């Protein structure tokens, strides 16, 4: 019988509880998720065994769910590191309970998203050809490089601010002390170590922002570097980045609301946090609409026949329901729910976020499939129905994400404990001093 670890006396006892107490719900969730993942794995083995014919893809729609989900998951992953870096950089004090969660999303979802192109390969056994004979000129290789860079950067960015918390868990003793000891890198909470850590985080957060932006820009390049109508557009880079941050914030909000409920974090994730992030979501929604509007207006005004054909196909063709669904989910619902104070409750924000996540997935579908369904050459229009295999792998991807998050919360605090303590101790005086320095007056006063 392992000795019971005392954590109740801690001010932030709630944050330790999920690590030391395991309920029935945990095992049930993990069991269900593992079942889904096993099912997805089985489906993937079928696909490798029989060939990509088991999917719904065909000629000319040679890319389907896998690429849609690839772009979608990478988009979601932008929530974390980018938002956390921006909040840290702008010294937003309300960031403290959010950053860890955001960074976890990035690390897990990026790994899932980054694997999607491999699911899409006809010959996954030959993927190592990329190492011996890769062509850096191909946008796919740009992706491989930038996703690897972003994954490395965001994992380090998740890990470094976690070290003081890991050291706390190590000092508590109990389960897995050796693991925490290994991961804590000899952290003793000395002044010097704090200085080193802060400096490392500061360099990292400045670095991570351009890397994050480059990742989604490069993903849009996969499409915009081809000559296909509907894809060959210069706006795609920023359009994808905005869409990614948009869907990322929505995913972060959903996860925050879920964690608040499950781990009883009402005292940490307060209404103000949701209000602030909700406002950010609203801004991104308007920005997204602006980009969508510009993208389609240039197409319609120019009326290049192939371009126009695809736009009409999106507006009125068999995929019209997805197009208008996207407008509804990405613009109308969030603007109504977030724009009016009486709807902007936590429930309202939850619904808006769910709508945005669905809408952004539809947006990816609307970009990938209709352009491929209408090739320039006069072939019969293609139609695409995803097969059970593709659905299974989509579900599997989501399940891996939830499982990753649940397991993470079992081993590490999902809200940064040391940053919360630091906030409690130092933030008020620090902010006061900072505000003093903004106020008009002699330069010396601020010092």
């Amino acid at each position: 019988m392992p000795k019971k670890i005392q954590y109740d006396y801690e001010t932030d006892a709630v944050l330790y509880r999920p690590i030391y107490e395991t309920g029935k719900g945990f095992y049930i969730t993990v069991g269900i998720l593992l079942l889904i993942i096993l099912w997805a794995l089985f489906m993937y083995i079928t696909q490798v065994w029989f060939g990509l014919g088991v999917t719904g893809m065909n000629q000319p729609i040679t890319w389907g769910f896998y690429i849609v989900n690839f772009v979608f998951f990478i988009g979601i992953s932008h929530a974390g590191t980018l938002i956390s870096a921006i909040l840290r950089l702008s010294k937003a004090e309300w960031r403290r309970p959010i950053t860890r969660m955001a960074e976890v999303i990035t690390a897990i979802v990026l790994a899932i998203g980054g694997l999607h192109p491999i699911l899409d390969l006809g010959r996954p056994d030959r993927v190592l050809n990329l190492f011996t004979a890769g062509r850096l000129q191909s946008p796919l290789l740009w992706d491989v490089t930038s996703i690897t860079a972003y994954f490395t950067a965001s994992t380090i960015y998740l890990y470094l601010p976690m070290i003081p918390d890991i050291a706390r868990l190590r000092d508590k003793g109990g389960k897995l002390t050796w693991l925490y000891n290994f991961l804590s890198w000899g952290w003793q909470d000395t002044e010097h170590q704090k200085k080193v850590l802060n400096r490392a985080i500061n360099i990292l957060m400045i670095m991570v922002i351009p890397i994050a932006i480059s990742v989604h820009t490069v993903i849009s390049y996969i499409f915009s570097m081809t000559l296909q109508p509907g894809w060959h557009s210069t706006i795609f880079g920023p359009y994808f980045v905005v869409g990614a941050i948009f869907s990322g914030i929505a995913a972060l909000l959903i996860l925050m609301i879920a964690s608040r409920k499950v781990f009883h974090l009402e005292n940490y994730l307060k209404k103000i946090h949701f209000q602030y992030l909700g406002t950010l979501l609203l801004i991104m929604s308007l920005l997204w609409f602006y980009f969508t509007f510009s993208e389609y207006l240039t197409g319609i005004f120019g009326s290049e026949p192939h371009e126009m054909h695809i736009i009409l196909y999106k507006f009125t063709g068999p995929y019209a329901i997805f197009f208008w669904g996207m407008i509804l989910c990405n613009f109308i619902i969030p603007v109504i729910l977030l724009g009016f104070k009486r709807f902007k409750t936590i429930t309202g924000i939850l619904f808006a976020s769910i709508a945005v996540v669905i809408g952004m997935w539809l947006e990816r579908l609307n970009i990938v499939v209709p352009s491929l369904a209408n090739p320039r050459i006069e072939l019969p229009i293609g139609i695409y129905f995803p097969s059970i295999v593709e659905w299974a792998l989509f579900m599997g991807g989501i399940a891996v994400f939830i499982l990753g998050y649940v397991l993470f919360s079992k081993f590490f605090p999902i809200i940064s404990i040391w940053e919360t303590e630091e906030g409690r101790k130092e933030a008020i005086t620090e902010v006061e001093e900072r505000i003093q320095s903004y106020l008009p007056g002699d330069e010396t006063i601020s010092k």
Partner: protein
Amino acid sequence: MNESKKKINEGRIKSMQDKIIALAQLASFLAMWVFVIGITIWIINLISVSVELHDAPGVSLGISLIAIPVFITLASILTYAYFGFKKKDNSKLKNSSED
């Protein structure tokens, strides 16, 4: 007698554990550098292939100019943190002397 022996033994096990963990930390930190150097070698290999095949080597070179420094900076930050944390004892002395 027995008691102190036991204590010494325990201490030995403890220091052994600490040594293993310190080694593992060093290994994981070196793995990061192996990873980064591996990527660098990979990219250089791709450039040499593209030069050999006259297949737009300029593009490869441009991408590598961005990619390699990014990875090396990331590894350097980790190195800085790794050695920065190690230096705790000196800084404590310094702090106390300054105080």
